[in-house]
C-alpha cells in the first residue's frame, strides 16, 4: 500500500516549511518533498532575507509588518524547539527607504500610517549624521555604466528617507528554514529530501498523490505547490491547474554582489538595510564588513528567464547560467558607489546568482487551484522571505477552510493577521486576478 499523508507539500524552502508547521499544528499529517538535500537549500539559501515593511499596497505592508513580529520573537514562533544547527538570527538593523523617484514613497508612507508601522522621517542631514558614508545626490533615472550619462555629475539632492526601526535581515535564510523544519517535526511533520516529484495524480477532479522519480508513489488528498523557481513546472504537471491560472509564474535570474565597506566604516555593525530606488539597488550589511547589493529591477537591467533545471546545472552562456556577469557586477557595484563614493570595488566579482519564482505582476499567488485539493504558494518574486511565517499561517487556514467546504473563489477566505488583528481578503493573492497595476513590478512587490 502507498504511504498516506493528509497533505504533501512540494518544496521545503522558507515557504514550504512554515506551511507544514502550521498544518501540523492543526493536526494534519504532512510530508514535505524536496529534490535537494535539506530544508532551504534551494533559492531560499540565496535570499538576501531582508525584512522590511515598504510595499506598494496596503495589504502588502500589513502582511510584511505582521511578519516582523515573528522574526523579532523567533524562538517563541518556533515553539522553543531545539535545532542542533542552532537558530537563525534576526539582525535588527533598521531599514531605510530613500525618498526618490524610484519609489512611490508617499504611498508607502500612507500605507505605513494606515497599518500603524513605526517609522521616522529622516532629513538628508539626519541620514548623513547616521550614515556618514552616504552621499545623497540624486542620480535618477537609473542607468548602467555602459550609458555615458552614468558618470554625469549630479545636480540635485534627494529629499531624505523613511526609517523603519524594526526592519533588518535574517543572517542565515537556509538555517531559518531548517529551524522551521525542526519546529514542524516536533508536531509530527515529516520531510523527504533528495526526492523529486515527477507526476501528480488526480481522480475525478481531485488530487490523490504523487509519484517520485524513483517510482515511489505517495498519496495525500491535499498537495501544495511551494516549489519556488520550479513552481511553473509543478503546475504544468496538472494542465487544468496551469490553464486555470490567470497569473503565471516563471523563473527570473538574479545576481547579488558583495563589496567591501569603505575603509574605516563598520557597515556590518553600524549600517542599515537600505532600499534605494534612485540607483535601483537595495543593500544591507553582510559578514566580513561587506555591502550585499541587489538590483531593484529598474527598466535598464536585463531580465533573463532561464529553465530552472538548466540554470542549476550551470548550462547556458554568460548571463544565462549560474555565474556572475561582469556587466551586472559593474552595474550594481558602480550604482552603489554613486551613493557610497568611498565604496571599494574589487577587481574580481563576488556574489551569488539564483532564481526568483516571479509572477506576472510580482505579487505572489496564495490560493487554491482549479483541481480540488491542489494549492498554490508560488510567485514569491524575490519579495516574500520576510512574510514566510505569515504565509504559513494563512495558507494552512485557507487550505483547512477549503477542505471544509469553503468556496474560496466565490467568497475568498478572510484572513486575520494574528498580531495586528487586521483582517484582509486573501482574494488579493488569487490566481484568477487580473494583473495588479498597483504593484511596483519589481522585487519591491
Amino acid at each position, binding site marked *: 500500500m502507498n504511504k498516506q499523508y493528509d497533505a504533501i507539500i512540494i518544496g521545503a524552502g522558507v515557504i514550504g516549511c512554515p506551511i507544514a508547521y502550521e498544518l501540523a499544528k492543526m493536526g494534519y499529517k504532512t510530508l514535505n518533498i524536496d529534490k535537494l538535500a535539506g530544508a532551504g537549500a534551494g533559492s531560499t539559501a540565496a535570499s538576501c532575507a531582508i525584512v522590511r515593511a515598504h510595499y506598494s499596497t496596503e495589504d502588502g505592508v500589513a502582511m510584511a509588518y505582521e511578519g516582523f513580529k515573528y522574526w523579532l520573537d523567533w524562538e517563541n514562533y518556533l515553539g522553543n524547539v531545539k535545532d542542533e544547527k542552532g537558530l537563525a538570527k534576526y539582525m535588527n538593523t533598521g531599514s531605510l527607504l530613500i525618498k526618490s523617484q524610484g519609489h512611490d514613497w508617499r504611498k508607502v508612507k500612507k500605507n505605513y500610517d494606515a497599518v500603524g508601522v513605526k517609522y521616522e522621517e529622516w532629513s538628508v542631514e539626519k541620514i548623513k549624521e547616521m550614515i556618514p558614508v552616504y552621499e545623497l545626490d540624486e542620480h535618477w533615472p537609473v542607468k548602467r555604466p555602459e550609458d555615458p550619462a552614468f*558618470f554625469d555629475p549630479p545636480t540635485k539632492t534627494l529629499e531624505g528617507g523613511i526609517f523603519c526601526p524594526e526592519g533588518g535581515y535574517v543572517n542565515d535564510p537556509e538555517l531559518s528554514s531548517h529551524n522551521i523544519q525542526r519546529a514542524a517535526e516536533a508536531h509530527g511533520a515529516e520531510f523527504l529530501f533528495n526526492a523529486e516529484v515527477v507526476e501528480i495524480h488526480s481522480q475525478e477532479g481531485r488530487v490523490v498523490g504523487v509519484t517520485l522519480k524513483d517510482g515511489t508513489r505517495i498519496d495525500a488528498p491535499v498537495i501544495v505547490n511551494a516549489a519556488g523557481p520550479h513552481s511553473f513546472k509543478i503546475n504544468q504537471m496538472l494542465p487544468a491547474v496551469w490553464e486555470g491560472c490567470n497569473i503565471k509564474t516563471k523563473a527570473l535570474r538574479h545576481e547579488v554582489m558583495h563589496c*567591501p565597506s*569603505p575603509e574605516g566604516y563598520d557597515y556590518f555593525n553600524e549600517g542599515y538595510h537600505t532600499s534605494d530606488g534612485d540607483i535601483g539597488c537595495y543593500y544591507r550589511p553582510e559578514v566580513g564588513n561587506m555591502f550585499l547589493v541587489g538590483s531593484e529591477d529598474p527598466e535598464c537591467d536585463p531580465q533573463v528567464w532561464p529553465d530552472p533545471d538548466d540554470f542549476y546545472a*550551470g548550462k547556458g*552562456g*554568460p548571463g544565462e*547560467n549560474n*555565474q*556572475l*556577469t*561582469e556587466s551586472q*557586477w559593474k552595474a550594481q557595484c*558602480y550604482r552603489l*558607489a*554613486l551613493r557610497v*563614493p*568611498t*565604496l*571599494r*570595488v*574589487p*577587481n*574580481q*566579482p*563576488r556574489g551569488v546568482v539564483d532564481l526568483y519564482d516571479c509572477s506576472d505582476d510580482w505579487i505572489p499567488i496564495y490560493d487554491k487551484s482549479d483541481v480540488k485539493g491542489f494549492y498554490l504558494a508560488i510567485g514569491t518574486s524575490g519579495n516574500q522571505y520576510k512574510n514566510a511565517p505569515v504565509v504559513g499561517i494563512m495558507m494552512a487556514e485557507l487550505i483547512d477552510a477549503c477542505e471544509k467546504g469553503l468556496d474560496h473563489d466565490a467568497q475568498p477566505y478572510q484572513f486575520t493577521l494574528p498580531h495586528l488583528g487586521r483582517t484582509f481578503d486573501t482574494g488579493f493573492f488569487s490566481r484568477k486576478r487580473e494583473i495588479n497595476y498597483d504593484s511596483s513590478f519589481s522585487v519591491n512587490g
Partner: protein
Amino acid sequence: MKIYVCVKSVPDSAATIRIVGRNQFDEHITFIINPYDEHAIEEAMRLRATNEKAEVIAVCVGRAEAAGSLQSALAMGADRGIHVTTDDAVDSFITALALKAAILADGQPDIIFTGKQSIDAEGFQTMFRLGAVLGVPVATNVTAFALQDGIATVDCEMEAGGRAVFRMPLPCIIAAGKALNNPRYPTLPDIMKARKKPIQTLALASLDLPTPSAGMEVIGLRPAVEDRRRHIIAGTGEQAVAELIRLLREEARVL
C-alpha cells in the same frame, strides 16, 4: 624612478572552464587581473608613495580584451599602461621577450614587480625568463620588501614555512606573494580617473622580437578530476581536535 608592474589577464577563478577541442577553452567567461599581480601593484604604489618622482607603469601582454585588466591596474593607482596585443596564445619565452621589448622601448626600469604566479597557467616561469633576458636578479614569493640606497631587501617564503632573505641591487624583479600586502580596492572615482589614463598599444608583431631559444606549447587540456574524500573524525571533542590537527599536519600538510 621607473617602476614597472607586469600584469596578466586571467579567467575569474570562480568561472566554470569548458574545454573546447584539443587545447582551448571557451573564453566567454569573465577575465580578471591575475590576483597575485594585485599584490605587485599594491607594492609598487607603496614604493611610489615614498618617491615623488616615481612613475608606475603597468605592462600586459594579451588579447585586446586584456585591456580590462590594465584598467584594473590603473584604477588601483598605476599612472599609465602599455598593452602588447596578440591574438595568439603566447608562452613564457615570448611573453618575457615581449615584456622586455615593451619596457626598454619605454624607459630604463629601476624595479619590476610581478605576481609570483598566474592563477591560470601556473607556469611560475615568466618572471625568471624576464630576469634572464634582462640580465637582472629575481626573487619570488616575496612576503616583505624594503628599498634603501639602491638595494632591495626581500623576504621570500620557502617550502615548509622557511624564509630566505635576499639583498639585490637595482634593477631587479620582485615577484609578489600573497603575504606581501593587502591590495587596495579601487573606488568609483579611482575607476573613473583610470579611464582617462593613457594606455599605449603595441602589436606583438611590431616588436621585432628575436627568435626565442625554445618554446612551449599546450598540446592538451583536460579537466581536473576533483578527488574529495570525506573523512569522519570520531571521538570526543578533544580527541577529534587532536586528530584533526594531526591530519592537517601529516596528510594535508597545511600546518
